C-alpha cells in the first residue's frame, strides 16, 4: 500500500475548516492561536504537494490509455485548481491545435468534496454530452448531476475517504486503480464515433 498522504485525508475530513483557514485565510476567534494557524499552513501545503503527485500519476494513466485507443497530448496539470487533463483526438484525424481541442480527458479533485472525478469532455456542450452518454454507456454521469462544466461527463466519482475511515491512512494505489478502470471503459470504436460527431460541433 502506498499512502495517499495523511494531510490529504485530514484535509478532506476537515474540509470546511481547512477551506476557511487555509484557502480563504479567514480569521476566526475559535481558531486564532498562531501555532495552530502555522500547523494549518503546513498541513495545507503538504496536502497540495501530495495532490500534485497524485494528479501526475493520473496524468500518466490517461496518457497511457488514450495512446492505445486514440491519440493524446501530454498531460497538462493545474496544481492550483487540482486538475489534470489531456487533449484527445481520434486516430483517423490529425492533431488539432491546442486552443481547438475537440475532446479532452482529465481528472478533477474538487476542493470541497472528498472525491476524484474522472471525466471526458467534448466540444458542443449538451449535444456532446448526449453523444457521449449514448456511446460510453449509461454509467456516465451528466455534467448537471456532478457539478462539472457543460460538455463534460463523469466516468466515475471515486470517494477519497472510504466509509468508516477513522484514521488518516488512505491507499493511493487503490484510488489510482479505480481511475484506471474508469478510463478503460472508453474503447477506440466508441471514441471514434463521438469524435466524428463533436468535430462538427461548436461551444
Amino acid at each position, binding site marked *: 500500500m502506498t499512502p495517499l498522504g495523511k494531510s490529504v485525508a485530514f484535509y478532506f475530513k476537515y474540509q*470546511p475548516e481547512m477551506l*476557511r483557514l487555509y484557502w480563504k485565510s479567514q480569521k*476566526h476567534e*475559535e*481558531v486564532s492561536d498562531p501555532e495552530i494557524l502555522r500547523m494549518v499552513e503546513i498541513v495545507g501545503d*503538504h496536502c497540495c504537494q501530495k495532490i*500534485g503527485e497524485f494528479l501526475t500519476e493520473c496524468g500518466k494513466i490517461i496518457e497511457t490509455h488514450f495512446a492505445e485507443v486514440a491519440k493524446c497530448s501530454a498531460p497538462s496539470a493545474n496544481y492550483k485548481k487540482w486538475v489534470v487533463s489531456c487533449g484527445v483526438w481520434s486516430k483517423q484525424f490529425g492533431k488539432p491545435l491546442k486552443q481547438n481541442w475537440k475532446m479532452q480527458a482529465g481528472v478533477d479533485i474538487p476542493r470541497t468534496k472528498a472525491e476524484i472525478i474522472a471525466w471526458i469532455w467534448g466540444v458542443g456542450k449538451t449535444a456532446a454530452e448526449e453523444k457521449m452518454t449514448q456511446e460510453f454507456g449509461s454509467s456516465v454521469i451528466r455534467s448537471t448531476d456532478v457539478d462539472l462544466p457543460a460538455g463534460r461527463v463523469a466516468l466515475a466519482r471515486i470517494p477519497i475517504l472510504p466509509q468508516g475511515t477513522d484514521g488518516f491512512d488512505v491507499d493511493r494505489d487503490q484510488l489510482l486503480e479505480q481511475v484506471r478502470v474508469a478510463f478503460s471503459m472508453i474503447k477506440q470504436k466508441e471514441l471514434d464515433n463521438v469524435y466524428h460527431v463533436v468535430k462538427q460541433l461548436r461551444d
Partner: protein
Amino acid sequence: MLIQCNGCNKKWRLPDDAPGKSFACPECAQSSVIPTNVFLVQCESCNSKLSIKPRRAGQKVKCPKCHNGIQVPILTVGEITAQVSVTAKSPSDSNAGQPTTRNEKIGEESTLANSPKTESPTIGHGEGSNVGGNILAATEVTPVVVPSISPQFLEDLKVICRTVPVAPTADLCIQKLSTHFDRMREETGARQRDFRIDLRRVFNEVALVPEDQHLRTLAMHFEAWRTKARTQMGTYFAELPADDPLCCSISLFGIMKHGRLETAHTQVLAWLLDPKMEHGFGDGFLRALLSHLSGETIVDPIHVEKTHSEYVIDDGRLDVIVQGDFRRASDKQRWLLLIEAKIDANEGEQQLRTYDKWAGKHANGRDVYRVFLTPDGRSSETAIETWTPLTFLQLACIFRTVLKQQQERPGYHFLRFYICGVLKDICKWSLPLTNPETCDDPYNFVEYLKTVSASQEKNS
C-alpha cells in the same frame, strides 16, 4: 569571485562587485581590501600573458590566442594585498588554480556545512541582510554562506509557491525555478547550482511534513470549533419557521436542470426588482438591495421608471438594468442600477468596460450602482469603474431579510423556491436542513442566519 583568506586559508565566494571593498573574514576576522588591480596570467600553451580582472578569480577563461582553457587562480587576501602574478595551468592539471607565490597549503572551500557559526546572516528582507553596503561583511559572502533564512523570505516564497502553479514536487519546482532564475539573470552554471542548493534548503524549510501529533492537535481544535458551530446552528434551527427556504427541498430551476442557468436567474432578478410585477412585493426587494449597496437604510419612496433584463446596448447585453429615483420632500435623487451576473462563465473581452462606457453616456447625472454578481464574490477584471462584488449568497441574505414581511403576497412561495434554488444550485448547500447535529459544514448556515437575523433586527 573566489578568494582565499591569508590568515586562516579559508576560501570564500564573493559577489563580482567585491573588488575595492573591505572584506572581514568570517572565520578569523582578519580584514583587508579586495584588490582592484588586474592579474597577469601566462597561458601554459602559447605563453601569452593575459590581463585578468580580479572578479574572474577562481573561474575558467579561454586564451584569446590559442583558445586553451585557463584556470584563473584564487585571489589571496590578507593583511597585505599585492598584485599576484602567476603562470596559469590547464584545468586538467591537479595543481591548477593554486597560487605560486605563497600559501601553498589551501584549506577546503567554505560550504554550507562548514560555514562560520559566529554570525547568522539572512536571505532577503531579514535584519541581517546587508547587500549593497561599502564594507563587505560576512553577510555578503553569498550564496555559499547562508546559515539561516529570514521569516519574511519564507513567507514570500510561500506566496510564490502558492500563486505560481509551477510543479507538484520539490524537485520539479526547484528545477523550474532555478531555470527561470538562470534565464533571468544569465548567470553561470555554478551560480545556478548555488541558487538551487539555497532554494532546496529554503524549500525543505517551507514544505514541512506534518507530524501525526500536529494532525491530532488540529483535529481536536477543529472538532471543538465544529461542535460549537453545530450548537449555534441548532439554536437558529429551532427558531426557523417550517416554510423557511432552508427547510425547502424544491429548487425553482433545479427541477428543470437549469439551476445554474445565468439568464434564468437574471430574468427572475429583474422581475423581483420591478415593483409593478404580479408578485405583489412592491419595491421591497429593490429597497433592500439599494440599501445594501448604499450602506444606509433607504426610507424614501422609490419611483421606478424602467426595469429590463438582457437589455441590449451598443455592444452587448446588460443582464439587469433598473432606473428610477428616490422621492424626497424637496427633490428627487435619480439613480441607475446595473447588474452583471456570472455563474459558470467568465467576463467577455472588455465586457464591463463596454458597460461602463455606455453608463457614462446614458447616466445623465444619475447615481450609478454597479453590481457584479457571482457565486464567489470575485471582482471584475474588465471594468473601469467600481462594480460592487456581490455573491449569490449575499443576494439570498438580502432577499431573506424581507421575506418574512411578504408571506401574504402572491409571489411568496415562488420566492421560497427561488432562494432555495440559489442556495442549493449555486451555493451548493445541502437542503433541506434537517439535523444540525450531523451537519458537516455548519459554518455557512450560522453565518447566513446570523446575517439575516442582524438585518431583520436593524430593519425592525
